[in-house]
Protein backbone atom coordinates (compact mmCIF):
# COMPACT_ATOMS: atom_id res chain seq x y z
CA UNK A 1 0.00 0.00 0.00
CA UNK A 2 1.16 3.52 -0.64
CA UNK A 3 1.63 5.84 2.29
CA UNK A 4 -0.47 8.93 1.89
CA UNK A 5 1.74 11.66 3.34
CA UNK A 6 3.27 11.61 6.81
CA UNK A 7 0.32 12.71 8.89
CA UNK A 8 -1.52 9.36 9.31
CA UNK A 9 1.61 7.45 10.27
CA UNK A 10 2.54 10.30 12.59
CA UNK A 11 -0.77 9.92 14.42
CA UNK A 12 -0.28 6.20 14.86
CA UNK A 13 3.30 6.59 16.04
CA UNK A 14 2.27 9.31 18.48
CA UNK A 15 -0.35 7.06 20.07
CA UNK A 16 2.15 4.22 20.37
CA UNK A 17 4.78 6.49 21.92
CA UNK A 18 2.28 7.85 24.42
CA UNK A 19 1.42 4.31 25.57
CA UNK A 20 5.11 3.37 25.80
CA UNK A 21 5.81 6.42 27.97
CA UNK A 22 2.96 5.52 30.30
CA UNK A 23 4.21 1.94 30.56
CA UNK A 24 7.71 3.13 31.47
CA UNK A 25 6.27 5.52 34.04
CA UNK A 26 4.17 2.80 35.71
CA UNK A 27 7.14 0.41 35.82
CA UNK A 28 9.37 3.09 37.36
CA UNK A 29 6.72 3.96 39.94
CA UNK A 30 6.24 0.31 40.92
CA UNK A 31 9.98 -0.29 41.12
CA UNK A 32 10.48 2.72 43.42
CA UNK A 33 7.56 1.71 45.65
CA UNK A 34 8.87 -1.87 45.85
CA UNK A 35 12.34 -0.68 46.83
CA UNK A 36 10.81 1.63 49.45
CA UNK A 37 8.71 -1.21 50.85
CA UNK A 38 11.74 -3.49 51.06
CA UNK A 39 13.70 -0.70 52.76
CA UNK A 40 10.97 -0.27 55.35
CA UNK A 41 10.66 -4.01 55.92
CA UNK A 42 14.41 -4.23 56.58
CA UNK A 43 14.55 -1.22 58.88
CA UNK A 44 11.44 -1.50 61.05
CA UNK A 45 10.85 -4.03 63.81
CA UNK A 46 11.43 -4.80 67.50
CA UNK A 47 15.00 -3.87 66.84
CA UNK A 48 14.72 -0.73 64.65
CA UNK A 49 17.70 0.06 62.45
CA UNK A 50 18.49 3.32 60.65
CA UNK A 51 18.51 3.04 56.88
CA UNK A 52 22.27 3.66 56.71
CA UNK A 53 22.76 0.67 59.00
CA UNK A 54 20.55 -1.47 56.78
CA UNK A 55 22.57 -0.51 53.72
CA UNK A 56 25.81 -1.27 55.52
CA UNK A 57 24.52 -4.71 56.47
CA UNK A 58 23.36 -5.42 52.94
CA UNK A 59 26.79 -4.54 51.59
CA UNK A 60 28.76 -6.25 54.36
CA UNK A 61 29.34 -9.49 52.44
CA UNK A 62 31.15 -7.41 49.82
CA UNK A 63 32.79 -4.74 51.99
CA UNK A 64 33.72 -7.00 54.89
CA UNK A 65 32.35 -4.32 57.24
CA UNK A 66 30.66 -6.85 59.51
CA UNK A 67 28.61 -6.26 62.66
CA UNK A 68 27.17 -9.60 63.79
CA UNK A 69 24.00 -8.53 65.62
CA UNK A 70 22.73 -6.09 62.98
CA UNK A 71 23.80 -8.33 60.13
CA UNK A 72 21.94 -11.27 61.56
CA UNK A 73 18.72 -9.26 61.85
CA UNK A 74 18.99 -7.75 58.37
CA UNK A 75 20.51 -10.61 56.37
CA UNK A 76 19.36 -13.58 58.39
CA UNK A 77 15.81 -12.59 59.33
CA UNK A 78 14.34 -9.59 57.57
CA UNK A 79 15.89 -9.93 54.11
CA UNK A 80 14.74 -13.52 53.53
CA UNK A 81 11.30 -12.49 54.69
CA UNK A 82 11.18 -9.53 52.28
CA UNK A 83 12.55 -11.66 49.43
CA UNK A 84 9.95 -14.32 50.19
CA UNK A 85 7.25 -11.66 49.92
CA UNK A 86 8.72 -10.29 46.70
CA UNK A 87 9.14 -13.67 44.98
CA UNK A 88 5.92 -15.31 46.16
CA UNK A 89 3.92 -12.14 45.54
CA UNK A 90 5.54 -11.78 42.13
CA UNK A 91 4.74 -15.38 41.21
CA UNK A 92 1.15 -15.03 42.41
CA UNK A 93 0.83 -11.77 40.48
CA UNK A 94 2.15 -13.33 37.26
CA UNK A 95 -0.01 -16.41 37.68
CA UNK A 96 -3.09 -14.29 38.34
CA UNK A 97 -2.66 -11.99 35.36
CA UNK A 98 -1.98 -14.96 33.08
CA UNK A 99 -5.15 -16.73 34.22
CA UNK A 100 -7.24 -13.59 34.00
CA UNK A 101 -5.98 -12.76 30.52
CA UNK A 102 -6.18 -16.27 29.07
CA UNK A 103 -9.65 -16.83 30.45
CA UNK A 104 -10.73 -13.27 29.59
CA UNK A 105 -12.27 -12.86 33.00
CA UNK A 106 -11.02 -10.60 35.80
CA UNK A 107 -12.41 -13.00 38.40
CA UNK A 108 -10.56 -16.04 37.03
CA UNK A 109 -7.46 -15.99 39.21
CA UNK A 110 -5.87 -19.20 40.54
CA UNK A 111 -7.33 -18.58 44.00
CA UNK A 112 -10.83 -18.52 42.51
CA UNK A 113 -10.64 -21.28 39.89
CA UNK A 114 -9.39 -23.77 42.45
CA UNK A 115 -5.64 -24.05 41.87
CA UNK A 116 -4.61 -22.81 45.31
CA UNK A 117 -7.48 -24.71 46.89
CA UNK A 118 -6.25 -27.91 45.26
CA UNK A 119 -2.79 -27.21 46.66
CA UNK A 120 -4.33 -26.59 50.08
CA UNK A 121 -6.25 -29.86 50.07
CA UNK A 122 -3.18 -32.00 49.44
CA UNK A 123 -1.00 -29.95 51.79
CA UNK A 124 -3.54 -30.26 54.59
CA UNK A 125 -3.83 -33.98 53.88
CA UNK A 126 -0.04 -34.24 54.12
CA UNK A 127 -0.06 -32.51 57.51
CA UNK A 128 -3.11 -34.19 59.01
CA UNK A 129 -3.18 -37.66 57.50
CA UNK A 130 0.50 -38.36 56.91
CA UNK A 131 2.00 -36.17 59.61
CA UNK A 132 4.48 -34.74 57.15
CA UNK A 133 6.11 -31.34 57.48
CA UNK A 134 8.48 -28.96 55.67
CA UNK A 135 9.49 -29.85 52.15
CA UNK A 136 7.12 -32.82 51.96
CA UNK A 137 4.17 -30.50 52.58
CA UNK A 138 5.44 -28.06 49.94
CA UNK A 139 5.77 -30.86 47.42
CA UNK A 140 2.27 -32.11 48.22
CA UNK A 141 0.95 -28.61 47.61
CA UNK A 142 2.65 -28.54 44.20
CA UNK A 143 1.21 -31.90 43.28
CA UNK A 144 -2.25 -30.81 44.41
CA UNK A 145 -2.13 -27.66 42.28
CA UNK A 146 -1.08 -29.56 39.19
CA UNK A 147 -3.56 -32.39 39.69
CA UNK A 148 -6.54 -30.11 40.20
CA UNK A 149 -5.47 -28.09 37.16
CA UNK A 150 -5.38 -31.26 35.05
CA UNK A 151 -8.81 -32.26 36.36
CA UNK A 152 -10.28 -28.86 35.56
CA UNK A 153 -8.76 -28.79 32.08
CA UNK A 154 -9.83 -32.36 31.36
CA UNK A 155 -13.38 -31.86 32.58
CA UNK A 156 -13.85 -28.70 30.55
CA UNK A 157 -12.53 -30.27 27.34
CA UNK A 158 -15.16 -30.70 24.67
CA UNK A 159 -13.67 -30.18 21.21
CA UNK A 160 -11.37 -27.68 22.85
CA UNK A 161 -11.71 -25.65 25.99
CA UNK A 162 -13.81 -22.53 26.22
CA UNK A 163 -12.66 -20.05 28.86
CA UNK A 164 -16.12 -19.72 30.36
CA UNK A 165 -16.54 -23.47 30.93
CA UNK A 166 -13.08 -23.63 32.46
CA UNK A 167 -13.92 -20.90 34.96
CA UNK A 168 -17.19 -22.53 35.99
CA UNK A 169 -15.66 -25.97 36.40
CA UNK A 170 -12.73 -24.38 38.26
CA UNK A 171 -15.10 -22.77 40.74
CA UNK A 172 -16.84 -26.10 41.23
CA UNK A 173 -13.56 -27.95 41.77
CA UNK A 174 -12.49 -25.25 44.21
CA UNK A 175 -15.62 -25.93 46.26
CA UNK A 176 -14.91 -29.67 46.21
CA UNK A 177 -11.31 -29.15 47.32
CA UNK A 178 -12.61 -26.83 50.04
CA UNK A 179 -14.93 -29.58 51.21
CA UNK A 180 -12.00 -32.00 51.34
CA UNK A 181 -10.10 -29.55 53.55
CA UNK A 182 -13.10 -29.20 55.89
CA UNK A 183 -13.52 -32.95 56.06
CA UNK A 184 -9.85 -33.48 56.88
CA UNK A 185 -10.15 -31.01 59.74
CA UNK A 186 -12.90 -33.07 61.34
CA UNK A 187 -10.56 -36.06 61.46
CA UNK A 188 -7.52 -34.20 62.75
CA UNK A 189 -5.74 -34.06 66.07
CA UNK A 190 -5.72 -30.61 67.63
CA UNK A 191 -1.98 -30.08 67.20
CA UNK A 192 -2.16 -30.88 63.49
CA UNK A 193 -5.12 -28.53 63.11
CA UNK A 194 -3.02 -25.64 64.33
CA UNK A 195 -0.22 -26.41 61.93
CA UNK A 196 -2.60 -26.92 59.02
CA UNK A 197 -4.44 -23.69 59.78
CA UNK A 198 -1.18 -21.75 59.91
CA UNK A 199 -0.23 -23.20 56.55
CA UNK A 200 -3.66 -22.42 55.05
CA UNK A 201 -3.45 -18.76 55.99
CA UNK A 202 -0.14 -18.33 54.24
CA UNK A 203 2.75 -16.72 56.06
CA UNK A 204 6.28 -15.50 55.54
CA UNK A 205 7.40 -16.66 58.99
CA UNK A 206 10.66 -18.50 59.12
CA UNK A 207 11.50 -17.76 55.49
CA UNK A 208 15.04 -18.71 54.55
CA UNK A 209 17.02 -18.48 51.35
CA UNK A 210 17.39 -22.28 50.94
CA UNK A 211 13.66 -22.58 51.36
CA UNK A 212 13.10 -20.02 48.59
CA UNK A 213 15.47 -21.53 46.04
CA UNK A 214 12.84 -23.65 44.22
CA UNK A 215 10.53 -20.64 43.89
CA UNK A 216 13.36 -18.45 42.60
CA UNK A 217 14.27 -21.12 40.07
CA UNK A 218 10.64 -21.45 38.93
CA UNK A 219 10.44 -17.68 38.40
CA UNK A 220 13.73 -17.61 36.56
CA UNK A 221 12.56 -20.27 34.10
CA UNK A 222 8.87 -19.42 33.78
CA UNK A 223 8.97 -15.62 33.50
CA UNK A 224 10.76 -15.64 30.12
CA UNK A 225 8.40 -18.36 28.89
CA UNK A 226 5.44 -16.24 29.94
CA UNK A 227 6.95 -13.21 28.19
CA UNK A 228 7.28 -15.18 24.94
CA UNK A 229 3.75 -16.58 25.17
CA UNK A 230 2.38 -13.12 25.95
CA UNK A 231 2.58 -12.33 22.25
CA UNK A 232 -0.01 -14.96 21.43
CA UNK A 233 -2.03 -13.78 24.41
CA UNK A 234 -2.42 -10.44 22.64
CA UNK A 235 -4.24 -12.31 19.90
CA UNK A 236 -6.14 -14.66 22.25
CA UNK A 237 -7.68 -11.66 23.99
CA UNK A 238 -9.57 -10.81 20.80
CA UNK A 239 -11.62 -14.00 21.07
CA UNK A 240 -10.91 -17.47 19.71
CA UNK A 241 -12.12 -16.75 16.17
CA UNK A 242 -10.06 -13.61 15.68
CA UNK A 243 -7.06 -15.25 17.32
CA UNK A 244 -7.27 -18.18 14.93
CA UNK A 245 -7.80 -15.81 12.03
CA UNK A 246 -4.57 -14.06 13.00
CA UNK A 247 -2.71 -17.35 12.86
CA UNK A 248 -2.53 -18.26 16.56
CA UNK A 249 -2.64 -21.91 17.50
CA UNK A 250 -5.32 -21.19 20.04
CA UNK A 251 -5.52 -24.46 22.01
CA UNK A 252 -1.76 -24.85 22.15
CA UNK A 253 -1.08 -21.28 23.27
CA UNK A 254 -3.84 -21.42 25.82
CA UNK A 255 -2.58 -24.70 27.23
CA UNK A 256 1.00 -23.37 27.39
CA UNK A 257 -0.08 -20.21 29.19
CA UNK A 258 -2.21 -22.16 31.65
CA UNK A 259 0.64 -24.57 32.40
CA UNK A 260 2.98 -21.66 33.14
CA UNK A 261 0.35 -20.00 35.32
CA UNK A 262 -0.37 -23.20 37.25
CA UNK A 263 3.32 -23.89 37.87
CA UNK A 264 3.88 -20.34 39.13
CA UNK A 265 0.92 -20.58 41.51
CA UNK A 266 2.08 -24.02 42.66
CA UNK A 267 5.64 -22.85 43.32
CA UNK A 268 4.48 -19.80 45.25
CA UNK A 269 1.93 -21.76 47.27
CA UNK A 270 4.50 -24.42 48.09
CA UNK A 271 6.89 -21.74 49.38
CA UNK A 272 4.61 -19.59 51.53
CA UNK A 273 1.16 -21.16 51.53
CA UNK A 274 -1.92 -19.94 49.67
CA UNK A 275 -1.57 -16.24 50.55
CA UNK A 276 -5.12 -15.19 49.80
CA UNK A 277 -6.09 -12.96 46.91
CA UNK A 278 -2.62 -11.69 45.89
CA UNK A 279 -3.04 -13.41 42.53
CA UNK A 280 -6.52 -12.00 42.27
CA UNK A 281 -5.76 -8.32 42.90
CA UNK A 282 -2.40 -7.88 41.13
CA UNK A 283 -3.58 -7.98 37.52
CA UNK A 284 -6.53 -5.61 37.92
CA UNK A 285 -4.42 -3.12 39.92
CA UNK A 286 -1.68 -3.22 37.28
CA UNK A 287 -4.23 -2.74 34.51
CA UNK A 288 -5.79 0.23 36.26
CA UNK A 289 -2.36 1.83 36.54
CA UNK A 290 -1.49 1.05 32.92
CA UNK A 291 -4.78 2.10 31.40
CA UNK A 292 -4.60 1.15 27.74
CA UNK A 293 -0.81 0.92 27.85
CA UNK A 294 -0.69 -2.78 27.17
CA UNK A 295 1.41 -5.61 28.53
CA UNK A 296 0.41 -6.10 32.18
CA UNK A 297 2.77 -9.04 32.78
CA UNK A 298 5.73 -7.47 34.61
CA UNK A 299 3.68 -4.70 36.24
CA UNK A 300 1.42 -7.39 37.74
CA UNK A 301 4.44 -9.23 39.13
CA UNK A 302 5.67 -6.02 40.76
CA UNK A 303 2.22 -5.25 42.14
CA UNK A 304 2.03 -8.78 43.56
CA UNK A 305 5.38 -8.38 45.32
CA UNK A 306 4.45 -4.94 46.59
CA UNK A 307 1.06 -6.06 47.92
CA UNK A 308 2.63 -9.02 49.72
CA UNK A 309 5.50 -7.08 51.29
CA UNK A 310 3.15 -4.22 52.19
CA UNK A 311 0.56 -6.56 53.70
CA UNK A 312 3.24 -8.38 55.68
CA UNK A 313 4.43 -5.04 57.02
CA UNK A 314 0.90 -4.16 58.13
CA UNK A 315 0.38 -7.63 59.64
CA UNK A 316 3.60 -7.46 61.59
CA UNK A 317 3.80 -3.91 62.77
CA UNK A 318 0.50 -2.12 62.47
CA UNK A 319 -2.09 -4.38 64.07
CA UNK A 320 -1.18 -4.08 67.73
CA UNK A 321 0.98 -6.55 69.59
CA UNK A 322 -0.23 -9.67 67.83
CA UNK A 323 1.85 -10.43 64.78
CA UNK A 324 -0.51 -11.88 62.22
CA UNK A 325 0.33 -14.01 59.17
CA UNK A 326 0.38 -12.06 55.92
CA UNK A 327 -2.59 -13.98 54.51
CA UNK A 328 -4.95 -12.35 57.01
CA UNK A 329 -4.20 -8.89 55.67
CA UNK A 330 -4.14 -9.84 51.96
CA UNK A 331 -7.40 -11.73 52.51
CA UNK A 332 -9.10 -8.64 53.95
CA UNK A 333 -7.60 -6.38 51.29
CA UNK A 334 -8.62 -8.79 48.53
CA UNK A 335 -12.18 -9.06 49.79
CA UNK A 336 -12.58 -5.28 49.78
CA UNK A 337 -11.04 -5.11 46.31
CA UNK A 338 -13.39 -7.82 45.04
CA UNK A 339 -16.39 -5.79 46.21
CA UNK A 340 -14.93 -2.70 44.56
CA UNK A 341 -14.40 -4.58 41.27
CA UNK A 342 -17.93 -5.95 41.27
CA UNK A 343 -19.36 -2.53 42.09
CA UNK A 344 -17.28 -0.86 39.36
CA UNK A 345 -18.32 -3.49 36.81
CA UNK A 346 -21.91 -3.04 37.86
CA UNK A 347 -21.74 0.75 37.48
CA UNK A 348 -20.27 0.56 34.01
CA UNK A 349 -22.92 -2.04 33.16
CA UNK A 350 -20.44 -4.70 32.22
CA UNK A 351 -21.06 -7.13 35.07
CA UNK A 352 -17.71 -8.91 35.50
Amino acid at each position, binding site marked *: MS*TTGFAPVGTVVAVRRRLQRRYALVMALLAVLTLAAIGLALAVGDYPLPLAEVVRSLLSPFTGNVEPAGDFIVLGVRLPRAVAGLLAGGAFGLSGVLFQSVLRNPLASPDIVGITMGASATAVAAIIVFDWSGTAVSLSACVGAVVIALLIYGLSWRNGVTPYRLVLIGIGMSAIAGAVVSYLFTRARIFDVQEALAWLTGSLNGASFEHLAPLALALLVLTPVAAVLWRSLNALQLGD*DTAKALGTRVELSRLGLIIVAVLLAAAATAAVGPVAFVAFVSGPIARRLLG*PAGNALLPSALVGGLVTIGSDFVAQHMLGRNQLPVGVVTGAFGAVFLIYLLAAAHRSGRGG
Partner: protein
Amino acid sequence: MSANHQLSAADLTLGYADRTIVEKLSIAIPPARFTVIVGANACGKSTLLRGLARLLTPRAGTVYLDGRAIHQMPTKEVATLLGVLPQTPVAPDGITVADLVGRGRYPHQGWFRQWVAADDAAVANALQATDTLDLAGRAVDELSGGQRQRVWIAMALAQETELLLLDEPTTFLDINHQVEVLDLLTDLVHERGRTVVAVLHDLNLACRYADHIVAMRDGKVAASGTPPEVVTPELVKSVFGMDAEVVSDPVSHTPMIVPVGRHKVKAKLKAAAE
Protein backbone atom coordinates in the same frame (compact mmCIF):
# COMPACT_ATOMS: atom_id res chain seq x y z
CA MET B 1 0.50 -7.57 -8.68
CA SER B 2 -1.88 -9.99 -7.11
CA ALA B 3 -1.13 -13.68 -7.09
CA ASN B 4 -4.87 -14.39 -7.37
CA HIS B 5 -5.29 -16.90 -4.63
CA GLN B 6 -7.90 -19.61 -5.06
CA LEU B 7 -10.28 -20.49 -2.26
CA SER B 8 -12.75 -23.31 -2.69
CA ALA B 9 -14.55 -26.02 -0.78
CA ALA B 10 -15.58 -29.51 -1.81
CA ASP B 11 -18.37 -31.47 -0.10
CA LEU B 12 -17.96 -29.39 3.01
CA THR B 13 -19.98 -30.48 6.05
CA LEU B 14 -19.94 -28.19 9.07
CA GLY B 15 -21.75 -28.28 12.39
CA TYR B 16 -21.72 -27.71 16.11
CA ALA B 17 -21.94 -30.43 18.76
CA ASP B 18 -24.66 -32.78 17.48
CA ARG B 19 -26.15 -30.42 14.88
CA THR B 20 -25.11 -30.35 11.25
CA ILE B 21 -25.59 -26.90 9.76
CA VAL B 22 -23.89 -27.04 6.36
CA GLU B 23 -24.00 -30.32 4.47
CA LYS B 24 -21.94 -31.37 1.45
CA LEU B 25 -21.52 -27.85 0.18
CA SER B 26 -19.19 -27.12 -2.70
CA ILE B 27 -18.21 -23.60 -3.62
CA ALA B 28 -15.46 -21.83 -5.55
CA ILE B 29 -14.69 -18.24 -4.68
CA PRO B 30 -13.81 -16.37 -7.88
CA PRO B 31 -10.41 -14.73 -7.44
CA ALA B 32 -10.07 -10.96 -7.71
CA ARG B 33 -13.83 -10.60 -7.43
CA PHE B 34 -16.22 -9.31 -4.79
CA THR B 35 -18.38 -12.23 -3.63
CA VAL B 36 -21.40 -11.56 -1.44
CA ILE B 37 -23.20 -14.25 0.56
CA VAL B 38 -26.86 -13.60 1.34
CA GLY B 39 -29.53 -15.64 3.08
CA ALA B 40 -32.02 -15.64 5.94
CA ASN B 41 -30.94 -15.52 9.57
CA ALA B 42 -29.51 -18.81 10.85
CA CYS B 43 -29.21 -20.35 7.38
CA GLY B 44 -25.49 -20.97 7.98
CA LYS B 45 -23.71 -17.99 6.38
CA SER B 46 -21.42 -17.37 9.32
CA THR B 47 -20.84 -21.08 9.71
CA LEU B 48 -19.79 -21.37 6.07
CA LEU B 49 -17.53 -18.33 6.34
CA ARG B 50 -15.89 -19.74 9.48
CA GLY B 51 -15.41 -23.04 7.71
CA LEU B 52 -13.81 -21.40 4.68
CA ALA B 53 -11.54 -19.40 6.98
CA ARG B 54 -10.40 -22.60 8.82
CA LEU B 55 -11.90 -21.27 12.09
CA LEU B 56 -14.21 -24.28 12.21
CA THR B 57 -12.94 -27.78 11.53
CA PRO B 58 -15.08 -29.56 8.94
CA ARG B 59 -16.99 -32.75 9.78
CA ALA B 60 -16.31 -33.88 6.24
CA GLY B 61 -15.04 -32.43 2.99
CA THR B 62 -12.14 -30.08 2.44
CA VAL B 63 -11.44 -26.39 2.04
CA TYR B 64 -8.69 -25.68 -0.47
CA LEU B 65 -6.46 -22.63 -0.56
CA ASP B 66 -4.42 -22.62 -3.76
CA GLY B 67 -5.02 -26.33 -4.09
CA ARG B 68 -3.80 -27.21 -0.60
CA ALA B 69 -6.09 -28.39 2.20
CA ILE B 70 -6.34 -25.27 4.34
CA HIS B 71 -6.66 -27.15 7.63
CA GLN B 72 -3.34 -28.84 6.97
CA MET B 73 -1.47 -25.62 6.21
CA PRO B 74 0.46 -23.82 8.97
CA THR B 75 -2.17 -21.49 10.42
CA LYS B 76 0.25 -18.59 10.45
CA GLU B 77 0.97 -18.96 6.76
CA VAL B 78 -2.76 -18.91 6.07
CA ALA B 79 -3.03 -15.74 8.16
CA THR B 80 -0.67 -13.91 5.81
CA LEU B 81 -2.90 -14.84 2.84
CA LEU B 82 -6.38 -14.75 4.28
CA GLY B 83 -7.91 -12.25 6.71
CA VAL B 84 -11.19 -12.73 8.54
CA LEU B 85 -13.56 -10.44 10.36
CA PRO B 86 -15.87 -12.60 12.52
CA GLN B 87 -19.45 -11.50 13.12
CA THR B 88 -18.99 -10.66 16.80
CA PRO B 89 -15.36 -9.99 17.64
CA VAL B 90 -14.41 -9.08 21.22
CA ALA B 91 -12.15 -6.20 22.20
CA PRO B 92 -10.18 -6.40 25.46
CA ASP B 93 -11.21 -3.79 28.05
CA GLY B 94 -9.67 -0.40 27.55
CA ILE B 95 -7.63 -1.19 24.42
CA THR B 96 -6.98 1.78 22.14
CA VAL B 97 -8.02 1.86 18.51
CA ALA B 98 -4.43 2.03 17.23
CA ASP B 99 -3.42 -0.91 19.44
CA LEU B 100 -6.37 -3.04 18.31
CA VAL B 101 -5.76 -2.34 14.63
CA GLY B 102 -2.07 -3.05 15.23
CA ARG B 103 -2.96 -6.59 16.33
CA GLY B 104 -3.83 -7.21 12.70
CA ARG B 105 -0.07 -7.15 12.11
CA TYR B 106 0.39 -10.23 14.29
CA PRO B 107 0.86 -12.73 11.42
CA HIS B 108 3.61 -10.56 9.96
CA GLN B 109 5.59 -10.55 13.17
CA GLY B 110 7.56 -13.26 14.86
CA TRP B 111 10.38 -14.04 17.23
CA PHE B 112 12.85 -11.90 15.40
CA ARG B 113 10.60 -9.59 13.44
CA GLN B 114 9.07 -7.21 15.98
CA TRP B 115 7.19 -3.97 15.31
CA VAL B 116 8.64 -2.02 12.37
CA ALA B 117 7.81 1.11 10.40
CA ALA B 118 5.87 -0.92 7.82
CA ASP B 119 3.49 -1.94 10.59
CA ASP B 120 2.85 1.68 11.52
CA ALA B 121 2.22 2.44 7.86
CA ALA B 122 -0.21 -0.47 7.47
CA VAL B 123 -2.12 0.60 10.58
CA ALA B 124 -2.24 4.22 9.42
CA ASN B 125 -3.50 3.19 5.98
CA ALA B 126 -6.17 0.95 7.45
CA LEU B 127 -7.34 3.68 9.81
CA GLN B 128 -7.45 6.23 7.05
CA ALA B 129 -9.30 3.92 4.68
CA THR B 130 -12.02 3.29 7.25
CA ASP B 131 -12.26 6.92 8.29
CA THR B 132 -11.11 6.18 11.83
CA LEU B 133 -7.73 7.91 11.97
CA ASP B 134 -9.01 10.57 14.35
CA LEU B 135 -10.10 7.80 16.75
CA ALA B 136 -6.58 6.30 16.92
CA GLY B 137 -5.96 7.22 20.56
CA ARG B 138 -9.47 6.50 21.84
CA ALA B 139 -10.54 3.42 23.82
CA VAL B 140 -12.48 0.96 21.67
CA ASP B 141 -15.12 0.31 24.34
CA GLU B 142 -16.01 4.00 24.36
CA LEU B 143 -16.88 4.14 20.65
CA SER B 144 -20.28 4.00 18.99
CA GLY B 145 -21.34 0.72 17.38
CA GLY B 146 -20.59 2.00 13.89
CA GLN B 147 -17.22 3.46 14.84
CA ARG B 148 -16.30 0.16 16.47
CA GLN B 149 -17.35 -1.78 13.38
CA ARG B 150 -15.11 0.36 11.19
CA VAL B 151 -12.21 -0.14 13.60
CA TRP B 152 -12.62 -3.91 13.29
CA ILE B 153 -12.66 -3.62 9.52
CA ALA B 154 -9.46 -1.59 9.86
CA MET B 155 -7.93 -4.43 11.87
CA ALA B 156 -8.73 -6.90 9.10
CA LEU B 157 -7.35 -4.48 6.50
CA ALA B 158 -4.13 -3.99 8.47
CA GLN B 159 -3.48 -7.68 8.02
CA GLU B 160 -2.91 -6.83 4.32
CA THR B 161 -4.02 -10.18 2.96
CA GLU B 162 -4.93 -11.02 -0.63
CA LEU B 163 -8.11 -12.72 0.54
CA LEU B 164 -10.52 -11.03 2.91
CA LEU B 165 -13.59 -12.70 4.45
CA LEU B 166 -15.96 -10.37 6.31
CA ASP B 167 -19.04 -11.38 8.26
CA GLU B 168 -21.60 -8.58 8.06
CA PRO B 169 -19.10 -5.72 7.86
CA THR B 170 -21.87 -3.17 7.40
CA THR B 171 -24.05 -3.90 10.44
CA PHE B 172 -24.28 -0.91 12.78
CA LEU B 173 -23.21 1.44 9.99
CA ASP B 174 -25.28 4.38 8.79
CA ILE B 175 -26.17 4.37 5.10
CA ASN B 176 -23.26 6.61 4.16
CA HIS B 177 -20.68 4.50 5.95
CA GLN B 178 -22.20 1.31 4.51
CA VAL B 179 -21.66 2.65 1.03
CA GLU B 180 -18.18 3.88 1.94
CA VAL B 181 -17.15 0.49 3.29
CA LEU B 182 -18.50 -1.30 0.22
CA ASP B 183 -16.78 1.22 -2.05
CA LEU B 184 -13.56 0.61 -0.16
CA LEU B 185 -13.88 -3.17 -0.53
CA THR B 186 -14.62 -2.71 -4.23
CA ASP B 187 -11.45 -0.61 -4.56
CA LEU B 188 -9.49 -3.44 -2.99
CA VAL B 189 -10.94 -5.86 -5.53
CA HIS B 190 -10.81 -3.80 -8.67
CA GLU B 191 -7.67 -1.76 -8.07
CA ARG B 192 -5.54 -4.18 -6.13
CA GLY B 193 -6.88 -7.48 -7.36
CA ARG B 194 -7.82 -8.66 -3.88
CA THR B 195 -10.47 -11.32 -3.38
CA VAL B 196 -13.24 -10.25 -1.00
CA VAL B 197 -16.07 -12.33 0.42
CA ALA B 198 -18.68 -10.60 2.56
CA VAL B 199 -21.92 -11.65 4.22
CA LEU B 200 -24.46 -8.86 3.74
CA HIS B 201 -28.09 -8.49 4.73
CA ASP B 202 -28.98 -5.54 2.51
CA LEU B 203 -29.96 -7.25 -0.74
CA ASN B 204 -29.94 -4.06 -2.76
CA LEU B 205 -26.41 -3.13 -1.76
CA ALA B 206 -25.44 -6.77 -2.25
CA CYS B 207 -26.77 -6.68 -5.81
CA ARG B 208 -25.09 -3.39 -6.52
CA TYR B 209 -21.63 -4.27 -5.26
CA ALA B 210 -21.34 -8.03 -5.78
CA ASP B 211 -19.51 -9.39 -8.81
CA HIS B 212 -20.67 -12.80 -7.67
CA ILE B 213 -23.56 -13.50 -5.35
CA VAL B 214 -24.21 -16.68 -3.35
CA ALA B 215 -27.70 -17.18 -1.95
CA MET B 216 -27.93 -19.70 0.87
CA ARG B 217 -30.89 -21.59 2.24
CA ASP B 218 -30.77 -24.16 5.05
CA GLY B 219 -27.03 -24.68 4.80
CA LYS B 220 -27.05 -25.14 1.04
CA VAL B 221 -26.28 -22.90 -1.91
CA ALA B 222 -29.66 -22.06 -3.38
CA ALA B 223 -28.21 -20.13 -6.31
CA SER B 224 -24.99 -18.42 -7.32
CA GLY B 225 -23.81 -16.23 -10.17
CA THR B 226 -23.95 -12.56 -11.11
CA PRO B 227 -26.71 -10.58 -9.39
CA PRO B 228 -28.94 -10.33 -12.52
CA GLU B 229 -28.68 -14.09 -13.01
CA VAL B 230 -29.44 -14.93 -9.43
CA VAL B 231 -31.78 -12.36 -7.99
CA THR B 232 -35.33 -12.97 -9.16
CA PRO B 233 -38.67 -12.73 -7.33
CA GLU B 234 -38.77 -16.54 -7.20
CA LEU B 235 -35.36 -16.74 -5.55
CA VAL B 236 -36.24 -14.07 -3.00
CA LYS B 237 -39.41 -16.00 -2.22
CA SER B 238 -37.61 -19.31 -1.80
CA VAL B 239 -34.64 -17.96 0.16
CA PHE B 240 -36.35 -15.40 2.37
CA GLY B 241 -39.95 -16.61 2.17
CA MET B 242 -41.04 -13.13 1.16
CA ASP B 243 -42.86 -11.73 -1.86
CA ALA B 244 -40.94 -9.06 -3.70
CA GLU B 245 -40.76 -7.13 -6.91
CA VAL B 246 -37.40 -6.96 -8.60
CA VAL B 247 -36.81 -3.72 -10.49
CA SER B 248 -33.74 -2.09 -11.98
CA ASP B 249 -31.64 -0.01 -9.60
CA PRO B 250 -31.77 3.50 -11.15
CA VAL B 251 -28.17 4.17 -10.10
CA SER B 252 -26.39 0.98 -11.10
CA HIS B 253 -28.92 -0.93 -13.22
CA THR B 254 -28.42 -3.92 -10.98
CA PRO B 255 -31.45 -5.78 -9.56
CA MET B 256 -33.27 -3.93 -6.81
CA ILE B 257 -35.64 -5.76 -4.49
CA VAL B 258 -38.85 -4.07 -3.40
CA PRO B 259 -40.40 -6.14 -0.61
CA VAL B 260 -44.13 -6.81 -0.54
CA GLY B 261 -45.43 -7.18 3.00
CA ARG B 262 -48.96 -7.40 4.37
CA HIS B 263 -49.50 -3.70 4.81
CA LYS B 264 -49.03 -0.54 2.78
CA VAL B 265 -49.37 -2.45 -0.47
CA LYS B 266 -51.46 -1.27 -3.42
CA ALA B 267 -54.69 -3.30 -3.83
CA LYS B 268 -53.81 -4.52 -7.32
CA LEU B 269 -50.43 -5.93 -6.20
CA LYS B 270 -51.97 -7.47 -3.13
CA ALA B 271 -54.42 -9.41 -5.23
CA ALA B 272 -51.61 -10.57 -7.51
CA ALA B 273 -49.55 -11.72 -4.54
CA GLU B 274 -52.45 -13.79 -3.22
